[in-house]
C-alpha cells in the first residue's frame, strides 16, 4: 500500500528569507504561488546554522549534540589535532529515508549534504559534495551512475573553483551545476519515489561568491558593478526550474521548499587564535614568522602553557585545555567554569577594528544540546558579531580583524533563519507560521505520509 501522501522536498541550501520572502517574492512567481496557497515562514536553524549539521538535524529531528557533530570537521576525543570529516557514516540516528524505507515506501535522494558514502535505501540515492569525485561510488545503487551520465552527462557534485576572482567562470559553473541537478531531478521522477528530496547547493555558493555585489551596505560594495543582479537572476532561474518541475509532479504530492539556514553580509573575520595569544590564553614555542599566517597545528603551540585555542569557520569554536582531559591540559577542572565565564565576557567585549561593539554571542553547548554527546563539542560556541563576523583559526595576522580570508574571496556569512514553505495542490491555505524549527520538518513529512512520528524526534508536525 502506498503512503497517505507523497512528498517532494526542494532543498535550497542557505536560501535567505530576507531575499526570498521579503525582497523578491513578486519576481519569483512559482515560489510565490506556493507561499500564497501554502503554509510558510522563517525557520530557525540548528546551533550552529551550518550545512553540517543542519541538514542532518532536519532529516533526523535531532539536535547537533545528539548527533555528535558540530561541523564538517570534528575533533577526535579531546585530542589537539586529530580531526575527522563528518560524512554519512557518523549519523547513527535514523533519517527520514531510513524510516520511510522501513515502512516499505520508496525514496529518492539527490544531493542531500552528508549522504556520502551512500547507504542502501528503498529506492535510490545520489550523494553529495563529500564524495571525492564522480569516479567514486557516489550513488546507491551504484549502477545508476550510468543513468546519470545518460541523463545529464558529467554530473557536478559542487563548484570546484569557488574561491576565485574569475566571477564569470564561477557564475557559469554555478548555473551549469544547478541546471544538471534540476535536469536529473526531472529525469529521475520516472522512478516514482514516494518521498523525493533534493538539495541545490548553488544558492549557498552564489551568496558567498556574489553578496558584496548586491548588498549596498556591504563594505566592499561598488555601485553599478556588473554582478549587481547576479543573485536575483539566479533566484529567478531557480524559480523557473521549480515551476517546470511542479508541472511534472502529480496532485498526490505535497511539496516543500526548505533551506537549512539563511545568509547575510560578511563584515569580516575575527582571528580567534591571534586574539587568544593577545589575551594570554594561547602560547607559542616561538614567534610566528612575520608577514605570513600559519595553521594552528603548524604554529608550534606550547600546550603546557596554553589554556585555550580555537577553530575557524562561519562560527567560532573554542576549546579549553583541561587537566586530566586533554593530554597536556593545564586548566584545573575546578577552575574550568571560572575560565570559561571569563572567556565569555572577554569574547563578548571584542569590538570591530574601530572600537565599535559588534554584539558577539557566546553559547555554552550544554545549554542548547539537550541529551547531547558533548565530549566532541567545543567548550564554547561563538557567534562573532552575531555571525556577521566569521572566525579564522590561522595564527600570525597583524590584527585580530581580517577582511580577506586566507583561501580567497567570500562575502557572506550564515544567518540563523532559513525558509520553510509547504504546499498541497489539493488544499489552499496561505498562512504564515511563526516559530518554525528545523526539527519540525521530519515529523511534518512523516505525518503527511501517514507514518507514525518516532517519540524521540525533537520537533512537531506542522499542519497544512
Amino acid at each position, binding site marked *: 500500500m502506498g503512503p497517505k501522501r507523497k512528498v517532494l522536498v526542494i532543498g535550497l541550501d542557505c536560501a535567505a528569507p530576507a531575499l526570498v520572502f521579503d525582497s523578491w517574492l513578486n519576481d519569483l512567481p512559482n515560489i510565490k504561488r506556493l507561499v500564497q496557497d501554502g503554509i510558510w515562514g522563517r525557520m530557525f536553524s540548528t546551533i550552529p546554522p551550518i550545512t553540517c549539521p543542519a541538514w542532518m538535524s532536519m532529516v533526523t529531528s535531532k539536535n547537533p549534540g545528539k548527533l555528535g557533530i558540530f561541523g564538517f570537521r570534528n575533533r577526535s576525543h579531546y585530542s589537539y589535532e586529530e580531526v575527522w*570529516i563528518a560524512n554519512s*557514516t557518523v549519523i*547513527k540516528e*535514523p533519517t527520514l529515508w531510513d524510516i520511510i524505507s*522501513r515502512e516499505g515506501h520508496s525514496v529518492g535522494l539527490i544531493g542531500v549534504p552528508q549522504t556520502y558514502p551512500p*547507504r542502501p535505501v528503498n529506492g535510490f540515492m545520489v550523494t553529495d559534495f563529500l564524495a571525492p*569525485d564522480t569516479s567514486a561510488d557516489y550513488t546507491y545503487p551504484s549502477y545508476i551512475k550510468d543513468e546519470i551520465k545518460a541523463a545529464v552527462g558529467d554530473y557536478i557534485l559542487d563548484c570546484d573553483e569557488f574561491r576565485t576572482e574569475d566571477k564569470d567562470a564561477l557564475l557559469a559553473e554555478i548555473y551549469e551545476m544547478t541546471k544538471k541537478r534540476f535536469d536529473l531531478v526531472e529525469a529521475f521522477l520516472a522512478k516514482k519515489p514516494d518521498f523525493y528530496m533534493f538539495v541545490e547547493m548553488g544558492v549557498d555558493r552564489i551568496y558567498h561568491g556574489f553578496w558584496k555585489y548586491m548588498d549596498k551596505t556591504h563594505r566592499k560594495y561598488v555601485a553599478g558593478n556588473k554582478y549587481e543582479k547576479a543573485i536575483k537572476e539566479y533566484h529567478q532561474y531557480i524559480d523557473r526550474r521549480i515551476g517546470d518541475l511542479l508541472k511534472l509532479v502529480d496532485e498526490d504530492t505535497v511539496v516543500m521548499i526548505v533551506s537549512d539556514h539563511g545568509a547575510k553580509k560578511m563584515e569580516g573575520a575575527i582571528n580567534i587564535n591571534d586574539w587568544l595569544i593577545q589575551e594570554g590564553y594561547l602560547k607559542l614555542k616561538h614567534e610566528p614568522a612575520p608577514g605570513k599566517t600559519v595553521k594552528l597545528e603548524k604554529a608550534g603551540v606550547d600546550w603546557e602553557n596554553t589554556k585555550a585555542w580555537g577553530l*575557524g*569557520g*562561519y562560527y567560532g569554536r573554542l576549546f579549553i585545555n583541561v587537566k586530566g582531559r586533554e593530554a597536556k591540559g593545564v586548566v584545573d577542572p575546578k577552575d574550568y567554569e571560572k575560565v570559561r565565564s571569563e572567556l565569555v565576557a572577554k569574547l563578548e567585549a571584542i569590538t570591530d577594528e574601530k572600537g565599535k561593539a559588534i554584539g558577539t554571542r557566546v553559547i555554552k553547548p550544554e545549554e542548547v544540546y539537550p541529551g547531547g554527546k558533548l565530549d566532541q563539542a567545543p567548550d564554547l560556541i561563538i557567534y562573532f558579531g552575531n555571525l556577521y563576523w566569521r572566525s579564522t583559526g590561522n595564527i600570525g595576522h597583524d590584527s585580530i580583524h581580517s577582511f580577506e580570508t586566507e583561501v580567497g574571496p567570500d562575502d557572506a556569512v550564515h544567518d540563523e533563519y532559513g525558509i520553510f514553505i509547504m504546499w498541497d495542490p489539493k488544499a489552499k491555505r496561505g498562512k504564515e507560521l511563526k516559530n518554525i524549527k528545523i526539527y519540525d520538518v521530519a515529523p511534518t513529512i512523516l505525518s503527511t505520509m501517514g507514518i507514525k512520528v518516532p517519540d524521540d524526534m525533537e520537533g512537531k508536525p506542522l499542519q497544512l
Partner: protein
Amino acid sequence: MEKGVLIWFTGVAASGKTTVGRALEKAMKDRGLKIENLDADEIRANLSPDLGYTPRDRDMNTKRLAYMGKVLARNGVSAIVAAVSPLRQYRDRARGMVDNFVEVYVKCPIDVCRQRDPKGLYKRADRGEINDIAGLHQPYEEPDKPEVVLDTDKEDVETCVNKLLLTMETLGYIPKSDVKGGKTYSDEEEEKVKERLRGLGYIE
C-alpha cells in the same frame, strides 16, 4: 534480548550465494554479532541426506532451514541460509516464520554461472548426467521484492557484504557501525574532500 535476523540468499547454482554468505558471516562476527551460517550443502549432508533436488525435496529442505533459522533468531542469533530456493512460496514461508527477514537475491546471468560452475553442475548437465538444475531444467522464480539484490557479475564480494550490512542497519536489524568518517576515504580522497571544504569556507 535483540532478535536475530534470518538472512536468506536465493539464486541459481553458482550465482555466489555461498561465497557472499561466508564473507557476510565473517563480517558479522568481526562486528561481534551472533551469527550461524546454515550453509545448505552442509545441512543437506548432515541433517537431510535423505533429500534430493525434486520439487518435493526442495520444499522440505527449505522448510527445515527456515525452521532452524526461526529457532536461532528467537534466541538472538542471526542465521544465514544460502539455498537456491527456486520458488517464491519457499521464501515467503520462511519470511512468515521470523520478525526480521532479509531476502537476498543473488543475481547473476546464467552464462556467467556456467563459466564459474565450482561444483561442475552445469558440465554434468551438459553431459546429460543431471536434469534438476533450477533455472535450467526446473523453474526459478525471481523474488518480487527482495530486501537486497546482489549483482554478483558486477559487484565484488566486499561490495555485496557492505550492501547487506548497510541494509540491515537501515532496517534497524543490527546496530550502525562505529566507523568514524575519515576511514571511509583513502588518504588522497580525504585530502581532496578537505581541500574542497576549505575552499567552500566550511573549514580552514
